[in-house]
């Protein structure tokens, strides 16, 4: 397994090997799916759209529909205007979405198509909306694309109605699972917070099977709701990398006060999220949530011995990693390595601050790096467990270390769409996964005389 991975880590300038990120448009497509009756549209070669749909489908195991401008060589020479205009016409005629969310690709960005202008010059049917985000694949990562599309929702849709009293709270869930979005809504509902959450993929990419296919499932935030977001009291943006741009845009455009928070993964970040909602909305803590929190604390106390002091290497997307690094430290684990493929120096600063506070002098944080580097560093400094997406499985097998699948994408297991990792219940799930992974590994590899009934 990964037999060609040898040697010590050395910074490379040309070659990325086994990337820990992918390109913007797929993130933009995922975000767009969180709008009700929205058809994402990929402005570029049809291969992009195909790849993005395939990859999203593998992760969600649900239909992921999107259209494409189907560039040919001619479009590259003459520009993609005609492809987009024709494409939009066909889309509205044939598929009748409420919204089309256009993302660009490296192709249309390189040739310099002015998508905004093209859309303006297109005859969009009455009552229909077209929004767009510039998502060049050669900048940022899929997380950036998600963020850009969220921002585009605000830019193109949200409005502040003057004279109307501000009310309600916007929640930007960030680049998380449909199950997580559902859980965030449950928490806000239990706290009696009037809220608008967008995007919301929870009933779009994790839909029931009832024998009826509907191209546009019941879920997703409506355009009306996104529009009214401009009249909210405040925006709670979860995950700075995926949500802060939209929150700031709401501030700029509609003067809605932004609060940038961590993803509510782990006890501390969930506490903070709940406290923020209580602070903004008033009201009291909900008893059932408090009960869940108490159970979480109970488990953290009672089974710390299964993971406390264990070394963990984490990779994935910045927002998940920031919250997870905090949580594994709160579990008493030692995050020796935290690595993302996404750029953003603030990530290094945030993680390093956690290391410093926890006295972890030998831990490393890296951005814009790849899984070849991740593997080399683990070989140099072995860990007990890896937390990351499916791509970590090769390293896990090569190094005979258990992998806890978290983050995006998960292409080889079932469950992430249905069971959240956010909130207190989610934290319990993470603990279940970590302990199970460590104990399973022990049970498989220990000497027979050390194999035990009670653990």
């Amino acid at each position, binding site marked *: 397994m990964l037999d*060609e991975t040898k040697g010590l880590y050395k910074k490379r300038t040309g070659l*990325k090997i086994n990337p820990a990120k992918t390109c913007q448009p797929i993130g933009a497509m995922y975000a767009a799916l969180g709008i009700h009756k929205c058809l994402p549209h990929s402005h570029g070669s*049809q291969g992009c759209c*195909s790849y993005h749909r395939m990859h999203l489908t593998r992760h969600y195991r649900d239909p992921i*529909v999107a259209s494409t401008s189907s560039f040919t060589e001619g479009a590259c020479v003459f520009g993609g205007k005609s492809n987009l205009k024709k494409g939009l016409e066909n889309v509205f005629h044939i598929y009748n979405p409420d919204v089309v969310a256009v993302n660009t690709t*490296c192709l249309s960005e390189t040739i310099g198509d002015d998508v905004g202008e093209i859309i303006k010059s297109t005859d969009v049917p009455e009552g229909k909306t077209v929004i767009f985000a510039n998502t060049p694949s050669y900048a940022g990562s899929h997380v950036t694309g998600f963020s850009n599309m969220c921002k585009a929702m605000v830019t193109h849709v949200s409005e502040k109605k003057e004279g109307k009293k501000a009310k309600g709270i916007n929640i930007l869930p960030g680049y998380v699972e449909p199950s997580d979005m559902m859980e965030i809504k449950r928490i806000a509902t239990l706290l009696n917070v009037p809220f608008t959450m967008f995007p919301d993929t929870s009933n779009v990419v994790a839909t029931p099977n009832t024998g009826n296919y509907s191209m546009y499932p019941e879920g997703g935030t409506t355009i009306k709701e996104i529009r009214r977001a401009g009249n909210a009291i405040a925006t709670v943006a979860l995950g700075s990398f995926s949500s802060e741009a939209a929150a700031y845009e709401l501030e700029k455009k509609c003067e809605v006060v932004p609060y940038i928070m961590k993803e509510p993964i782990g006890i501390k970040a969930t506490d903070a999220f709940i406290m923020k909602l209580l602070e903004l909305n008033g009201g009291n803590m909900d008893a059932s949530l408090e009960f869940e929190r108490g159970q979480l604390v109970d488990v953290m106390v009672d089974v710390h011995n299964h993971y406390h002091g264990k070394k963990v290497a984490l990779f994935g997307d910045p927002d998940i990693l920031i919250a997870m690094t905090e949580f594994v430290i709160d579990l008493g684990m030692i995050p020796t390595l935290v690595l993302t493929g996404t750029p953003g120096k603030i990530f290094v600063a945030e993680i390093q601050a956690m290391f410093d506070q926890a006295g972890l002098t030998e831990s490393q944080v890296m951005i814009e790096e790849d899984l070849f580097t991740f593997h080399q560093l683990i070989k140099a400094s072995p860990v007990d467990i890896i937390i990351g997406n499916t791509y970590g499985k090769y390293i896990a097998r090569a190094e005979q270390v258990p992998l806890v699948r978290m983050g995006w994408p998960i292409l080889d297991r079932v469950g992430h769409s249905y069971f959240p990792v956010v909130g207190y219940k989610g934290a319990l799930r993470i603990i279940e996964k970590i302990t199970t992974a460590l104990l399973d590994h022990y049970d498989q590899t220990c000497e027979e005389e050390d194999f035990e009934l009670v653990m």
Partner: protein
Amino acid sequence: MSESKKLVDKVLDIYPAKVMKNRKSHMVIKDASVKQEIAANTRAIPGIITNRGCAYAGCKGVVIGPIVDMVHIVHGPVGCSYYAWGTRRNKGKAREGGQNFLEYAFTTDMQESDIVFGGEKKLKAAIDEAVELFHPKAISISATCPVGLIGDDIHAIARDKAKEHGLKILAFSCEGYKGVSQSAGHHIANNKLMTDVIGTIDTPAKEFSINLLGEYNIGGDEWEIARVLTKIGYNIISTMTGNGAIDEIANAHKADLNVIQCHRSINYVAEMVETKYGLPWIKVNFIGVEGFSKALRDMAKYFDDPALTARTEAVIAEETASIEEEMATYKALLDGKTAVLFVGGSRAHHYQGLLREIGIETIVAGYEFGHRDDYEGRDVIPYIKVDADSRNIEEIHVEKDEKKYSLRIPASRAEQLKKEIPWASYDGLLSEMKDGTLVIDDLNHIETEQIIKILKPEFFGSGIKDKYMVQKMGVYAKQMHSYDYSGPYAGYQGAVNFSRDVAAGILTPAWKYITAPWYKEPLLSGKVEGVEQVC
């Protein structure tokens, strides 16, 4: 069949006029009494939710990527390399002492500054780093969309760096906008194999030596095929490109026969190989019990060796006996069901036989990126119009290599054989279809939805993009590219695997739960209330 007609009418009715006209030309209701023509390998219409991919996907993703001992560098932004990494199930093993890079993805991960100032410097550095880290036998460079636009000269870089490092570097200008589907990429890839690889190593071949062309070892297909072929006595010089090794492909021209599993671009390679080196090709179908047996017999006829023929029959007898009972079980479970097949390469055609062996009739079929000859047969090739999109894809022409050319079979014998076996010939998908069934090229999302709703097949064989929409309609959909992570499906054991999986898929008890009991039982109103947000 009126069902097919109804379907076509219903579908076309949805479209705007222009689209309707276009799509109509891609649909044919089989009528054996006339010569039928189908539009294929034309541009997808912008806005239409097509299943098609791009030239890069066909070149790197399908053809070049499976070669195990090369470092395949994707020159471009990160996504294209990422999506083609480990997703196609082309399995492979390192050769004794050799390398295997299938678990790796290599990319230059171009950034904005590379787009502005050019990516050549980064590509050069990437090659240097790849050589320093891995010392591979060969490297490929696949260009993605922006590369052609900004003018990076990947061919010059390949040439220079190959010389500098003393290894083979193959550069592919397979930008995603080339052509109209992944087929363009297959073509680009195979051209390069022809010009730069095949014929560059001359290790003498043993008897009964063959190449397998258009076989990508998805789910281990090649291993199952090779198991049987080896048992009979064949020597497989190279496979293009499933579990391929660069030096083996370089030596391919030393074989006695090219055995062609897939369509179009690989036929075209086989033809060039015959022209240049003299070894002929036959078309085979390794899918299904009958298909595989026929392929084995055709091959035996070509070699015309009594011992080989005897071993062929013995192996066929042994292998078919060992699976007979299980196949019969599945047939009993599935008899009378119907299938729709929409998948690239040869599969929409080849799987029909296997499906029939377990009692399933194919009522609609089509290719995702086929050409007219894939539907209508190779006789139509001279009559295909070359349009603007095809013109941009290089056609190469080869001549007899006087040093390396050798005629394997006397011309007279060849003439005879052409009557007996599919020597350099393919009759096309349409020939397989029953009258009244429907053939659709480049099937799209809304057409799929209508097919399922109107024809209600029990089996839909396609890809991951439409799998789940079909299943939401209560119909089992199988990924025919990835086999839903099962396999092998080729050969005898593959037939069993496929049949087992299809039986499971169609009969798994989950289907009977789709309608909730409160919609079935009379005592209840069946009305549903409540707010779903609160968990």
